[in-house]
């Protein structure tokens, strides 16, 4: 509770600082707020019980996912600085909205009551609708916002229908100590709730919005969508199925396998012939989401680390790649794959960082992505689905093709005569840290094991 209050205060401060002349204070305040919030979360957890009234839990997986959310926000915030260029009023708004949306994310990952989950989803989603439309004069951004909004509101309504059915069939919104009154209705409600969350996570066949929105939204906010929303969504799913694994029967296992396979397949197929890099990465995000879902087979509290590890690997690579895309797009005005030609000669840091991120997505050994896939597939093999392992391995290998097609571009020398350009050391440093972490976690996965289990 305290950590959420701290975040709210920081968000409100950011909003107000946006109106004053002291705009350079916004980001420091916000980042301090995130740090203070993390401190409040981890050091005053014992105070929580009386405040949360059993509606939110901090034990187990929530604390891991909240940590991830806050860390991810901390990395994203400095990059908002690029919006200083456009008259700083917006900087305050963006910062405030992102901080508020993190509260939504925290509610999602630690919910023990569908009311909190629903509110959390809405807080996060509404923030994302706004951010998708942040470039108000760019038609792509407008379109992304309206698409995300209409479909998101629709998916929320469906999710709410699931909540209603859940309430009818159990007489409560609590997700533990469930007394099932109508088993069939209960199964349907769980499925509908799952579908609602699957929409937010862009799992096939609920993924259609993702490529359009990711492509249209301003790139920095695409990074936010690809990371914060995924962390929060998977955290929420984990919390939901952690409590419900005992109640719902075998079908949920097959449903997860089906959705995971479908996501990996469709994401891969569609990514093959993309020319927009943002779009390509959004499809690759669908593939990665499918992999993460494999970690949910037989969800137990002991599985937290596996899902969290995959998310860490995914988030590191996603942030790095979307930020690199931002800089290239900002320089050349487009995110077409051709604009990345000769990137190495123009800006070696960006090229190398992007290469490491893509290699990690593809699951090459010695990167975090490889370890993450290995853990997840080992888990699947342990539960006796060798076919799933086989297919996902084949698809993981197939995905290398388009990643490497992109990497190939960076090192091709480019005749267009674009001069080499530079970005400031602060951003460079952040990007390098992301890459180093990717490599470090691939070499030494236990580096974060104590934090995520």
């Amino acid at each position, binding site marked *: *509770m305290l950590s*959420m209050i701290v975040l*709210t205060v920081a*968000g*409100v401060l950011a*909003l107000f600082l946006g109106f004053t002349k002291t705009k350079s204070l916004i980001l420091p305040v916000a980042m301090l707020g995130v740090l203070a919030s993390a401190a409040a979360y981890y050091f005053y957890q014992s105070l929580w019980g009386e*405040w*949360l*009234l059993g*509606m*939110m839990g901090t034990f187990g997986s929530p604390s891991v996912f909240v940590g991830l959310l806050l860390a991810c926000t901390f990395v994203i915030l400095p990059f908002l600085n690029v919006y200083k*260029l*456009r*008259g700083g*009023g*917006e900087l305050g*708004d*963006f910062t*405030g*909205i992102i901080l*508020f*949306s993190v*509260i*939504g994310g925290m*509610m999602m990952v630690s919910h023990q*009551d569908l*009311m*909190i989950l629903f*509110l*959390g989803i*809405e*807080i996060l989603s*509404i*923030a994302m*609708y*706004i951010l998708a*439309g*942040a470039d*108000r*004069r760019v038609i792509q951004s407008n379109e992304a916002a309206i698409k995300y909004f209409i479909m998101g509101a629709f998916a929320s309504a469906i999710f709410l229908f699931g909540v209603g*059915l859940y309430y*009818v*069939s159990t*007489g409560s919104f609590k997700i533990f100590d469930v007394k099932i*009154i*109508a*088993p*069939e*209705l209960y*199964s*349907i409600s769980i499925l509908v709730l799952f579908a609602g969350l699957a929409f937010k996570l862009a799992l096939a066949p609920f993924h259609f919005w993702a490529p359009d929105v990711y492509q249209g939204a301003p790139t920095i906010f695409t990074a936010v969508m690809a990371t914060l929303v995924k962390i929060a969504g998977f955290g929420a799913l984990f919390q939901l199925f952690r409590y419900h694994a005992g109640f719902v029967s075998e079908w949920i296992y097959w449903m997860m396998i089906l959705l995971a396979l479908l996501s990996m397949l469709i994401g891969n197929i569609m990514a093959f012939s993309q020319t927009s890099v943002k779009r390509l990465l959004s499809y690759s995000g669908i593939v990665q989401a499918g992999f993460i879902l494999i970690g949910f087979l037989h969800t137990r509290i002991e599985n937290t680390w596996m899902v969290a590890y995959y998310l860490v690997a995914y988030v590191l690579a996603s942030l790095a790649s979307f930020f690199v895309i931002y800089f290239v797009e900002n320089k050349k005005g487009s995110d077409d794959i051709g604009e990345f030609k000769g990137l190495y000669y123009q800006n070696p840091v960006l090229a190398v960082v992007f290469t490491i991120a893509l290699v990690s997505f593809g699951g090459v050994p010695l990167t975090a992505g490889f370890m993450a896939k290995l853990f997840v597939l080992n888990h699947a093999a342990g539960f006796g689905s060798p076919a799933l392992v086989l297919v996902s391995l084949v698809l993981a290998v197939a995905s290398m093709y388009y990643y490497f097609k992109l990497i190939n571009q960076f090192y091709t020398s480019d005749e267009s005569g674009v001069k080499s350009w530079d970005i400031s050391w602060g951003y460079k440093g952040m990007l390098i840290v992301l890459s180093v972490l990717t490599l470090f976690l691939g070499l030494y996965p236990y580096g974060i094991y104590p934090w995520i289990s």
Partner: protein
Amino acid sequence: MIDKIFYVLSALTIISATLVIISRHPIRSILFLVLTFFLVSAHYVLLNAQFLALVNIVVYAGAIMVLFLFVVMFLNLNEEMVEVKSYLPWFAAVISGGSLMLIVTSALEKAVLTSPQLVSNYNIGLVENLGSVLYREYLLPMELSAVLFFIAMAGVMLLGRKERISE
């Protein structure tokens, strides 16, 4: 008696909702939507949920629909939109909607929902009751919904503002 009221009310609600989606004219759709909200509020009254009935009318029929109406007028959309005549979406929509309904119905058929021991207090829908529950048991979501409005506020300000670019 009351069962007849229920059925008539239900029929009216469904018809009015259907009219919302088939009216060609946006203003007409909005008016039917307001009617639907009133009818739903009537259901709330039947269920002894007076507070919600009132809130429903004030918030939905009052605030939200006025906003809709305002936008429609503001954007000058109060004329029919030429919608492409294609029966495929109609077909898909009606079939999928119908099957969803059938699924829920068949699940409901097997269910025995109300068990008598659950029905103990019929006045929960009254404002004094709801208020105390809201501020005792559901304080946390209540407070957190403030964040929701913060976001909505900031977002509307952001989206409505004129864009300035100073390089």
